[in-house]
């Protein structure tokens, strides 16, 4: 007991010393966030998921950082210059940037972090995000030592980065968690346990104080954060609630301020009864069906692929099945990229009746009729929502075109293997962009991307347009080239776009400053909690 009191006194004293006197006078402001799932890691080089990124965005800050509306703002870098050829970026770092342990944050920290990211020994899933930096790809492939990364500390606060090609989305890409600085001092001292409370050193608005696996993560305000004065919330809890139904109940009982998602089947109820706290906004993702174009009958007949895409009534699907206010998709890249002209399939302007009539004609021309119907197998990963959509689409194909669809569902990892090995005819899939740029989507259908290509699609014109775009410095001309590529893709129709995603959250009335945005980024440092 005496020891415990001693401990309390010491802890209290320590607390009083670290906190500014004014802060200890007012009650601490707490934000409780539903965060979807237990993080696989808090190490920016290791994690791959969205829940992790929501925590990392609060505890780390990259050279650039998303503002409350998700758009790019200066972060650790206060300014930057791009060379005329678009290959060299020179970042001026803030002289007052420090780690949460008080040590200065310099250009060398970024070089260390990025070299670690692409180092084969780190075995980072997302190493390729940094491959636009010269030599990065060769380092990951083990062809070069990691000190050959083309990033140079001109002085402590000047970082010069050379790219392998003018990469117009390079700054956007730097908002990705892979580009965050990581603390060398903690990693070298604690090894794989450096992300634990007590060990972890951060440079963002918060730092980790508690981590109970599958329980919660508690982050507290980092008083050394360069902009700590503007950070209003003192403590953030992230709860890995996987069941959206459970999460919603916790929200309704006042145990959470914000949720990660909402149960799809409850969206109409929420719109009716909790409209003021229900947030629904566009998200940078596309739900689609991939067609295996390495197999007949689809291999040699792009028209047949169009027929399947045309007979699918997206409006009914969205109104009756998904119900989340999604947007019917007639293109591959979701809307919302500033400056990029959205592309659509040629028949997007016609009404559903005309489409069905045209689709019927295509099928008849290809020799399919009642006695010889087109037979399609549709693969999806086991999930209620995918199943409902698959059944509805199979129904539309049957009703409008007489196509006989057999459904095949597989558990997630089995499905991934079937998909990669192209053991399917048509399969459901979805893609969410890593950064706000059309190439984040268009890259997927390149002929040279390997198994990732969801259709086995390969078209030289498409790849060439994408390559040209990669070397184009002028943003407008680049977008034009990418739009051309997308046009080619939509004419070939190896994938059937179905809808563009929306994202749903519950956000309590007491939380202010939450702005819906395309990447769904809501850093806690821009939020406030009012009673």
């Amino acid at each position, binding site marked *: 007991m005496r020891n415990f009191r001693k401990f309390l006194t010491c802890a209290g004293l320590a607390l009083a010393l670290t906190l500014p006197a004014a802060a200890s006078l007012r009650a601490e402001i707490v934000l409780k966030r539903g965060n979807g799932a*237990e*993080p*696989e*890691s*808090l*190490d920016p080089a*290791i*994690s*791959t998921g969205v829940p992790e990124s929501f925590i990392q965005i609060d505890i780390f800050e990259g050279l650039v950082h998303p503002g409350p509306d998700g758009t790019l703002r200066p972060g650790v870098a206060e300014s930057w210059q791009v060379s005329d050829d678009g290959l060299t970026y020179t970042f001026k770092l803030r002289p007052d940037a420090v780690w949460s342990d008080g040590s200065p944050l310099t250009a060398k920290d970024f070089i260390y972090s990025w070299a670690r990211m692409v180092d*084969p*020994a*780190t*075995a*980072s*899933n997302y*190493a*390729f995000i940094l491959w636009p930096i010269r030599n990065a790809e060769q380092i*990951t*492939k*083990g062809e070069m030592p990691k000190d050959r990364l083309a990033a140079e500390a001109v002085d402590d606060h000047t970082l010069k980065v050379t790219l392998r090609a003018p990469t117009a989305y390079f700054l956007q890409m730097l908002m990705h968690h892979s580009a965050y600085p990581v603390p060398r001092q903690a990693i070298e001292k604690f090894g*794989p*346990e450096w*992300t*634990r409370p007590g060990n972890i050193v951060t440079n963002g608005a918060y730092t980790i104080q508690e981590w*109970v*696996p*599958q*329980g*919660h993560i508690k982050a507290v305000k980092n008083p050394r954060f360069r902009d700590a004065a503007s950070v209003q919330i003192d403590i953030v809890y992230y*709860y*890995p*609630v*996987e*069941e959206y*139904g*459970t999460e919603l*109940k*916790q929200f*309704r*009982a006042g*145990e959470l301020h914000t949720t990660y998602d909402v149960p799809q089947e409850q969206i109409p109820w929420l719109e009716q009864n909790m409209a003021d706290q229900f947030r629904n906004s566009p998200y940078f993702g596309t739900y689609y069906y991939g067609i295996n174009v390495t197999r007949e009958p689809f291999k040699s007949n792009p028209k047949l692929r169009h027929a399947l895409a045309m007979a699918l009534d997206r409006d009914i699907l969205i109104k009756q099945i998904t119900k989340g206010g999604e947007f019917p998709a007639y293109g591959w890249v979701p809307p919302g990229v500033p400056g990029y002209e959205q592309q659509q399939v040629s028949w997007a302007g016609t009404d559903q009746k005309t489409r069905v009539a045209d689709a019927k004609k295509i099928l008849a021309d290809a020799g399919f009729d009642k006695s010889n119907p087109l037979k399609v197998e549709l693969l999806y990963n086991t999930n209620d929502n995918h199943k409902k959509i698959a059944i509805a689409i199979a129904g539309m194909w049957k009703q409008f075109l007489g196509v006989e669809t057999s459904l095949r569902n597989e*558990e*997630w*990892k*089995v499905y*991934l*293997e079937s998909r*990669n090995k192209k053991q399917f005819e048509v399969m459901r*899939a*979805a*893609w969410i962009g890593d950064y706000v740029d059309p190439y984040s989507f268009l890259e997927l259908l390149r002929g040279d991307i*390997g*198994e*990732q290509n969801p259709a086995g699609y390969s078209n030289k014109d498409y790849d060439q347009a994408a390559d040209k775009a990669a070397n184009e410095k002028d943003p407008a001309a680049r977008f034009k080239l990418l739009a051309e590529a997308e046009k080619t893709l939509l004419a070939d129709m190896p994938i059937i776009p179905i809808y563009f995603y929306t994202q749903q959250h519950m956000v309590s009335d007491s939380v202010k400053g939450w702005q819906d945005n395309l990447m769904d980024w809501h850093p806690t440092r821009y939020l406030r909690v009012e009673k």
Partner: protein
Amino acid sequence: MLTYAARRLLGAIPTLLVILTITFFLIRLAPGGPFDGERTLPAEIERNLAAAYHLDEPLPLQYVRYLGQVLQGDFGPSFKYKDFSVTQLIWSGFPVSLQLGGTAMLLAVVIGTALGAFAALRQNSGLDYGVMGAAMVGIAVPNFVIAPLLTLVLGVHLGWLPTGGWGSWQQMLLPVLALALPQIAYIARMTRASMIELLRSNFIRTARAKGLPERVTIFRHALKGALLPVVSYLGPATAAVITGSVVIEQIFGIPGIGRYFVQGALNRDYTLVMGVVIFYGVLIIVFNLLVDLAYGLLDPRVRYD
């Protein structure tokens, strides 16, 4: 009795080895690997990952390496939750599962046997039908119906109890109740059935004929015997309940280890699956041993010398 226990524990080693071996190869037979995801990784990156987790080595070598680790009490790093080792994950979640499951089991034994005994003594009365009817409902209605219902009514609408989380006694009430209800039902039915049988047996008739007070006949003779089938049920049931319930943990957001059985398999998290399966195996063996030892105390026909 000690030698008996020691012999049984030694005999468990080959059992565990078989469990370990089968699980090791079976999980690797499942299609897909731990690092497959929506984004297919470039081949070089996949190679780097496989090398980091020794998955590029031949299977027999991986097996020997794993066996060596386990002998040293190390279950290796989790493939999915990469900031923790499997041992750390188990030790972080098990106390929670133990507390939750242990309380639920204790509640189930006390209430279940009491209800079952009462029902047996008042066989075919209104009370009997009431208890057994309720027990049937308890068995038939699954956890994933009762638990959300409880949280909706008591948590959301009435606001009496928290709907999820872990740490305070209020947060324990609903999950313990939801976990205990079907167990109470099972135990009550089992106690009732064996009690009815025993009450008709010769030694009870003798006890009554000797003029023993009914209280002594019931508690010292009948109930003790009636508990035997309950005790055999309790061994594996306790092991199952204290290693966590994936349904209850998901619904109430409880940081136990139950979900690792399911998530581990779905994620192809080889080491995590191996860790929890071996852990569960050890618990089953220990609890079965405890059951057998308890038999020695309850049943005069069983002796371990």
